[in-house]
């Protein structure tokens, strides 16, 4: 394989259509782990994913998957999994039959396909319902089938496109658990495309951000959700008493949202806060440094310059 642990490599990848450039000289590598690929609609994310899946030929540059050229190699797709965002499940077939069939379509012999399908359905959380026609499934169950067909042939790498779309909060948490499990327990690396920054923060180790067909950010999630020097405090009652107690101790405090913030906190301020809390009898709900969030990347207006080498 080309460079170290890189599972997917894009090098000067460009895709031009008649009147629009979907990808413009993009270079990045995706390593082992869960990587988020972010960007606005039209930024080039789906084009990049389709190129890695061998569905589109790049105009120039190269896309390598598991060491093979993405477009030329048909065989490498036996080691890739894809969970599309759009509807892609047959209504009249059962999940068990469908997964067995797709496992075979990925190259597994029939008996292995059957056992892999059964095991994968169990890991994806589908039990008795697996013998019923998919048309009758709820959204949550359908998403599990979609994930199952991406994993049934034990790929080395899976592409997940908006896996939590349409799921209610409980379903979303369960799906994100499955995504984490896919890497941490099953050992399969993931490229996750999502518009929900909270999903990305909770599951991804690294991110790649595209905008206008260019790479504008890449790096570890931790880098983008670093702590700031602002301390945020939240109390349920007696807030005014707390503010007074803090001011008496010489602490400068600002009210913000449901709580209070203290800028540029020095070590000693924590003890002052603690004492003020006791004095004001203010029930402490939360005290923590503010963190940057991935949404901050998108709250700035206007375009940003393309990144140099990834972080």
């Amino acid at each position: 394989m080309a460079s170290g642990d890189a599972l997917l490599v894009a090098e000067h990848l460009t895709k031009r259509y008649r009147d629009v450039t979907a990808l413009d000289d993009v270079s990045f590598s995706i390593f082992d782990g869960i990587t988020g690929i972010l960007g606005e609609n039209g930024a080039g994310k789906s084009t990049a994913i389709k190129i890695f899946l061998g569905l589109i030929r790049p105009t120039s540059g190269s896309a390598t998957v598991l060491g093979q050229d993405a477009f030329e190699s048909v065989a490498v797709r036996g080691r890739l999994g894809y969970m599309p965002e759009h509807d892609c499940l047959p209504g009249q077939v059962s999940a068990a039959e469908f997964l067995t069939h797709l496992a075979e379509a990925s190259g597994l012999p029939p008996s292995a396909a059957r056992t892999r399908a059964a095991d994968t359905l169990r890991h994806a959380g589908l039990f008795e319902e697996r013998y019923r026609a998919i048309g009758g499934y709820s959204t949550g169950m359908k998403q599990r089938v979609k994930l199952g067909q991406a994993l049934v042939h034990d790929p080395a790498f899976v592409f997940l496109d908006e896996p939590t779309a349409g799921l209610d909060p409980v379903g979303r948490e369960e799906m994100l658990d499955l995504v984490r499990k896919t890497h941490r327990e099953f050992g399969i690396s993931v490229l996750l495309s999502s518009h929900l920054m909270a999903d990305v923060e909770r599951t991804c180790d690294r991110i790649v951000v595209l905008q206008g067909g260019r790479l504008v950010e890449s790096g570890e999630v931790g880098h983008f959700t670093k702590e700031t020097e602002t301390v945020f405090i939240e109390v349920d009652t007696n807030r005014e008493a707390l503010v007074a107690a803090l001011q008496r101790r010489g602490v400068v405090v600002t009210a913000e949202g449901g709580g209070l913030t203290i800028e540029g906190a020095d070590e000693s301020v924590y003890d002052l806060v603690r004492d003020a809390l006791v004095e004001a009898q203010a029930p402490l709900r939360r005290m923590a440094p503010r963190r940057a969030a991935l949404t901050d990347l998108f709250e700035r207006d206007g375009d940003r310059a393309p990144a140099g080498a990834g972080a």
Partner: protein
Amino acid sequence: MSGAPEPVIRVDGVSRWFGSVVAVSEVSFDVRPGITGLLGPNGAGKTSLLRMMTGLAATSSGTVTVFGEPVRDNPPLYGRLGVMSEHETVYGFMKGRDFVRMMGRLRGVSALEDAVDRAIDLVDLAAAQHRRMDTYSRGMRQRMRLAATLVHDPELLVLDEPLNGADPRQRVHFKRLLQQLAADGKTIVLSSHILEEVEELADTVLLIVNGKLAASGGFRAIRAALNQRPYHVRVVCDAPRRLAAAALGLPSVDAVHVDPDGAILVLSRNVLDLQIELPRLAQAGGIRLRRVEPLDDSLESVFGYLVER
């Protein structure tokens, strides 16, 4: 919230059933100006409730009044309502502007072209308005549908999963738009599964579970009302084991876990008790508290707890 004597929407003892299936069961609440979040698991009855609130469906029992009048079969009232349902049905062959204009005309909007301009500007799609909608991305289609919902400047907006398919920048823009509209005195009812966004936007939340209203009001107040629930708090301090020992002395604390990295995780049965006692114990022991983070505090945790109950 607001000083208005009458609520914008009053739902009173409303139920809806289909044969033996009870979709909504004796729900009552008021909606006032500002942003109200309607939450609940899939299949909990939210869609039925929204349809009854907008007059699209009749109640099986109970009444829904909007702006003081019954909402069902009340065409003059619809001019003050803007409704955006979850599933997209737009005519792909239509240009965006034409779609918004058509909806405006259907509503009898006067000064049509200006209203269309304004609505399209609000959703920031002026650049794309002359293109066919089948060339739009999903997020753009949603925004154009929102423009069509806003074209007649309704006082009440009911939006079901309006952010489906929207990318992060569009989400930010949309949030600002809603906040602006709320500041202008409009009433917005927003149904969404993305709780962290509802937490940011909504002053009031309504949680529907199995057809019943499980919680309503300000999120923080709801959370504070759930005093007796299992509550995990992660504490970083400079004497973890001493603080852990002290915490175990509290009768409301069920367990303390010590992390390899030095943080301690306190599991308590009484939220308020722990909130008061933790600083006190730290002070008594001369321990510096650096971080106190509840793990069950998000709208999502509270939601999960209420749904499971």
